[in-house]
């Protein structure tokens, strides 16, 4: 199979394009997805290819256009709604939580909401306190939603199609720091499973659980640790709701030590749920308390050095692992 160079951004675009080519019910809507080409240039060229009906620039009305996505899904379409970033999704949370997530249940199973909502997430680009949230943990709390976080090119390329095939609402978190990530992808790369975690690196000494933008920092840390003779296994959650307990428990059962890396603010970030599940399901496998490296409990500051200090970094991860193994 031949492979080509691509970027995360292009992989997402290819996934949208394929979905729109294959299924006339699929359309893209959101702020500046058309003429502007998407605030992260993901949808560049799609307006030209698919026209105004299927690539819809919306007014700045997060609640209405997300809600309209729900309604369009009920009406037989397969909308991909882009909310520029998770920061603005707060304005649409009522529709997502009170309608998208509950409609099937409230109606006694009569209506499903086959809606995909994509949004950029995360910090690291000096966008300061209002533009740097990582609220995946909020969405992952809500029954009725599925939540995924593509961290690799293959997942950026493959998760969207699977999400669109899902009869229920799926939230796709794309870490804004990944769009420029380059790599190779099989030319026929396509839909991938969106329910299982993936072991991105095997190792016997410690299990590092992470997802999204933090995956690459974690892999860097693992690389550094390998130089010191510490073999870390790195698990990419991929699906944040449901969480694939089996994969993380299995890994822990081999390594007996685990550390969670999560860009969310520490308290009540996904790391808390991962830690808790390991404790619930594999307590007696644990040779040490589960560790976590998360964002500091501070709105993200603008200056580079403060922002870097607020976020998980490879060096922080590595030293947390060293401390854990030394203890």
């Amino acid at each position, binding site marked *: 199979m031949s492979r080509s160079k691509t970027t995360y951004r292009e992989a997402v675009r290819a996934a949208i394009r394929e979905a729109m080519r294959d299924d006339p019910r699929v359309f893209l809507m959101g702020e500046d997805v058309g003429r502007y080409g998407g605030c992260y240039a993901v949808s560049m060229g799609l307006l030209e290819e698919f026209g105004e*009906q299927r690539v819809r620039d919306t007014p700045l009305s997060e609640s209405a256009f997300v809600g309209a996505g729900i309604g369009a899904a009920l009406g037989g379409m397969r909308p991909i709604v882009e909310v520029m970033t998770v920061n603005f999704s707060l304005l649409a949370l009522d529709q997502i939580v009170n309608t998208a997530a509950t409609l099937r249940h409230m109606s006694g199973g009569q209506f499903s909401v086959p809606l995909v909502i994509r949004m950029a997430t995360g910090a690291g680009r000096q966008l300061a306190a209002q533009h740097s949230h990582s609220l995946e943990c909020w969405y992952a709390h809500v029954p009725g939603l599925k939540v995924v976080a593509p961290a690799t090119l293959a997942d950026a390329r493959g998760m969207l199609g699977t999400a669109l095939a899902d009869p229920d609402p799926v939230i796709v978190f794309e870490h804004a720091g990944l769009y420029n990530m380059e790599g190779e992808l099989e030319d026929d790369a396509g839909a991938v499973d969106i329910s299982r975690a993936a072991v991105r690196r095997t190792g016997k000494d410690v299990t590092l659980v992470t997802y999204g933008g933090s995956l690459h920092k974690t892999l860097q840390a693992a690389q550094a640790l390998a130089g010191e003779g510490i073999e870390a296994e790195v698990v990419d959650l991929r699906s944040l709701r449901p969480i694939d307990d089996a994969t993380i428990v299995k890994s822990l059962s081999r390594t007996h030590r685990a550390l969670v890396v999560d860009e969310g603010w520490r308290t009540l970030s996904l790391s808390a749920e991962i830690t808790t599940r390991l404790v619930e399901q594999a307590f007696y496998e644990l040779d040490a308390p589960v560790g976590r490296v998360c964002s500091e409990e501070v709105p993200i500051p603008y200056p580079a050095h403060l922002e870097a200090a607020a976020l998980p970094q490879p060096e922080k991860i590595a030293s947390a692992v060293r401390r854990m193994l030394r203890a």
Partner: protein
Amino acid sequence: MTLTRDHGLHLYREMLRIRRFEERAAELYTEEKIRGFLHLYNGEEAVAVGVMQALQPQDAIVATYREHGHALAAGLPVNEVMAELFGKAAGSSGGRGGSMHIFDADLNFYGGNAIVGGGLPLAVGLGLSDRMLGRDRVTACFFGEGAVAEGEFHESMNLAALWKLPVLFICENNLYAMGTALDRSESETDLHAKAAGYRVASEAVDGMDVEAVETAAALAVDAVRTEGKPRFLECRTYRFRAHSMFDAQLYRDKDEVTEWKGKGPLLRFTKRLSEAGLATEDDLAAIDREVMEEVDEAVAFAEAAPWEPVASLTRHVYTDAQS
């Protein structure tokens, strides 16, 4: 349009069914057969009934938490609606939703939304799907005048107008949002005038007059269908009972309520029918008996219907899970 006897009796029956249903629901609430929040439609029957006459079978409906009237007027089986209020598995939403969340996929009845204003974006989306699929369908979206203050009203009106979507926005202006009078909620109390800010054609109609509502709705639905653009219809009405079953109604005078009851849609339409010689007292009494029987039967049905087993608690969260 002259009113025929058949149609007159039909409108009467439709409104009376709602009235009798709501009266019974209130009793059943006292008996604790119905629990949670219960919002009754007494006094507003002409709105739902008038609008529904204007809709075609393929049209879609989005309602609020005060939606028994819409559900019944849209043709949902009385038995199922009552069973839903009881929370029984035979209810419209399998009992999961209760009074505020009545749904019916077969009748394009999209609920039953308990978030004020929450239904408007949904209606816009239904209209969008109709536009994109080239489907001949109008979505009728009901909401109270309280919802007009919500941001979702503004965003939805604009989006529907901007994208020329076939949605009829129906504002049930009953003058109060819980205890908040219209003039304590809106700087511009002439609500239908607000539609101009979105370039949406609008009309205000006497919501206590079922014929007037029917006529206005027919015009509006027709315009939405042919022009493919949204319209706004304000129905001026009044809620006869408390907001919900927990409301001491400190915010309004008994006299005001009495006055409005004198203008009630059933009273008024009874007079209209008899003055036009379209119905005798006997005709109406017969309808009342039939309607009461329907409601009695619905109560019996709901009473007898089984509960969903606890074992299936987590059904209907996701489509693939045991459903």
